[in-house]
């Protein structure tokens, strides 16, 4: 069992994972100086989605969504839904890995083959996942302070460059989020993967999940606020990894000029946490669907599948952006809103029918 606090930190770190360097510039391009408002709207949407998941999970305590689907729709439809979820978790894991290797290749390790990043992360991740949810939860709780402090410290060191002018004209476009709703899908709807942890969390996990999503939304908003104030919306909208650039331009005195490796380590660790959650979700799905007696063979198979997926999920960063902008909301909405909502409706109908039968 993992504690509510561990689940909370897992939620926050999962959300921040790749978001910190994939969509920051998109958001600033869409909303200019008001970009910091977008994650707040998206977080609100994410919290509503989380309430839906919680309502579903509360119908069957101790069961994961995969089992709930089997209970509600029968073994065959349940298996199909389970396999769909397995594929979704693998796809997102592959996506996350590819974002990671893109970042590393563009910034500090241009020559290292991307597959090396993928395989290494997967092997270490698989090792942690094989140990079970307690290991994942505890490991994440232990490393969180080592991510939190260096990240905010390195951004704070840049504060010298702060200009309020860059945030003006303010409040001109507070509704910009609604023209760019894919932010809701990425990262907030992806948090559905966390529901696979649900049966392993001590009672009262609902608060941890919802407040985790809220904290992540506020953190993202704060990051965007700082990026806009430090880089200005003109540059931040164009630079691929604005946070990295901010820290790259920080110099402490005349000697310490290159401190961005600190930030890089923080970011890749956050991504590692996201990968861990997704890998765990995929592993747990297999476990719940087929009840295998061994752990490693299918974990290695997953690693091979995901590392292959990471090479093929998109061809280049432009495609990545188009995928997120055009399709991600539909894709994520299908598995994290539509299916859970249908499941919930089925359960309610069955229960009311059963209630009537009992009365009759």
């Amino acid at each position, binding site marked *: 069992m993992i504690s509510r606090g561990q689940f909370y930190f897992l939620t926050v770190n999962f959300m921040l994972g790749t978001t910190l360097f994939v969509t920051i510039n998109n958001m600033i391009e869409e909303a200019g100086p008001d970009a910091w408002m977008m994650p707040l709207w998206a977080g609100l949407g994410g919290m509503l989605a989380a309430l839906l998941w919680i309502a579903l999970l509360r119908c069957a305590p101790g069961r994961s969504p995969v089992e709930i689907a089997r209970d509600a729709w029968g073994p065959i439809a349940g298996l199909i839904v389970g396999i769909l979820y397995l594929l979704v978790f693998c796809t997102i894991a592959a996506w996350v890995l590819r974002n990671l290797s893109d970042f590393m290749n*563009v*910034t*500090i*390790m*241009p*020559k*290292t*083959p991307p597959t*090396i*990043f993928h395989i*290494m992360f997967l*092997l*270490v991740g698989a*090792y942690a996942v094989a140990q079970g949810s307690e290991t994942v939860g505890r490991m994440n709780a232990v490393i969180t302070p080592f991510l939190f402090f260096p990240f905010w410290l390195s951004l704070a060191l840049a504060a010298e460059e702060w200009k309020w*002018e860059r945030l*003006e*004209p303010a409040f*001109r476009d507070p509704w910009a989020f609604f023209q760019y709703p894919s932010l809701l899908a990425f990262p907030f709807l992806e948090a559905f993967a966390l529901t696979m942890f649900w049966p392993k969390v001590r009672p009262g996990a609902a608060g941890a999940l919802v407040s985790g999503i809220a904290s992540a939304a506020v953190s993202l908003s704060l990051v965007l606020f700082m990026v806009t104030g430090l880089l*200005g919306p*003109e*540059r931040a909208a*164009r*630079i691929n990894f604005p946070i990295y650039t901010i820290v*790259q*331009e920080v*110099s402490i005195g005349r000697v310490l*000029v*290159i401190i961005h490796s600190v930030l890089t380590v923080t970011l890749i660790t956050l991504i590692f946490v996201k990968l861990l959650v997704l890998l765990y979700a995929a592993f747990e799905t297999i476990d719940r669907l087929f009840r295998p007696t061994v752990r*490693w063979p299918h974990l290695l198979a997953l690693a091979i599948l995901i590392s292959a997926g990471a090479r093929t999920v998109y061809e280049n960063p432009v495609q990545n952006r188009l995928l997120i902008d055009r399709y991600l909301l539909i894709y994520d909405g299908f598995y994290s809103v539509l299916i859970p909502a249908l499941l919930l409706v089925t359960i309610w109908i069955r229960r009311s029918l059963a209630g009537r039968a009992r009365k009759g």
Partner: protein
Amino acid sequence: MFRRKAAAAVALALSAALLSSCWDKTELNELALVSMIGLDRDPESGIYTIRLQVINPTSGSTARGTPGGEQSPVYTYEANVRTLAEADLKFYHLIPRKLFLHHAKAVLISGRAARQGMRDFINFSELQPSARTSVPLFVVDGSIGEVMRTYTPLERTPAESLSSRIELLADYALQSGRDVEVRDVIERSERDEWIVLPMVAVTPKTGNLDSRDVDASIDANRNQLRLNGGAVIRNYRMVGRLDDNELVLYHLLNGDKGTFVRRVPFRNGHVTAVLLSRGTKRRLDWENGRPVVRIRLSLELSTLAMNEYHPRTLEDIRALEKAVSESITDELDAFLDKTRAKGWDLAGIRSLLGRKAPKLPNPDRAAADAKIRFEIKTLFTGMGNLSRLYEGSGGTS
């Protein structure tokens, strides 16, 4: 149990390979540390000339006669290319080490390239993840080739000498400011604001210039680099110049903080005032549909260099403060009249309107029409080491 241990050992061993990053390892002694970058483009042929000044690692600050002491502290490499990307390749015909741009301390652009427009250079630089744009940008007055081949006394590399000088000029002369870096040019140009960059020129040369002989000469005004006025940039293009005196007024308007000296008319004569600028605040008001910008400046006055006069009473102090405020207001008014007549918006009025009144139908027109009022507050805060000046008759004032 054994299998688990073996699996853990394999995972750990493999992650060690990830940590050491075998493909991207960089050894310090395999790098060419670039300290200064020189950019030029011939407007007629369109050929780019890129010069890199690379630090010579074997030359320390050693005395003559020791190994490496006679070597040049920096080497200047030059490449003539049709596209900027070719420069990298061309340099490897000459440089035996991997180029490392992170530590560059100064970027220089020739006057002709700056007049033509520097956007292409800047786009190229921002595309490279390895290049930082938080580096001061200088516009070269005269031949950039000569500037890149000139030593500077005292500092080991010319780039350090230049970057240190702009800091000193900002702190003690207000002839430079914080916003003179490549990233500031990008931001200001993208916001349609004006920016002034420091200009650098070569001082008269004597003797054998290409050798370290210049070190032996005592006359440090010759054979070196000199910061000389400012280049006015708009939209990535140099459109004019400011002299050293106008630079002070520009940086004062720009809100830069630093000390400067002014001769101020006072009671039938002049006094020398040491002033510390504490920054500006702008306010936008409207009078009959016409924008009025109030620029509030706060100055701290010191009599540290005032060898003509020493205030004794509160009235003296108020009078002195008033004289300073009035004199600076006059100077700023004259400076703005002159530059606005040329169509330069050095006070950033257009951008202020864009920020405070984003719905204005014709902001350019409004900015040109805007009235600018200065509200200067001078406060006497510091004095030198005399509470009364010596009054013998052997002076000039």
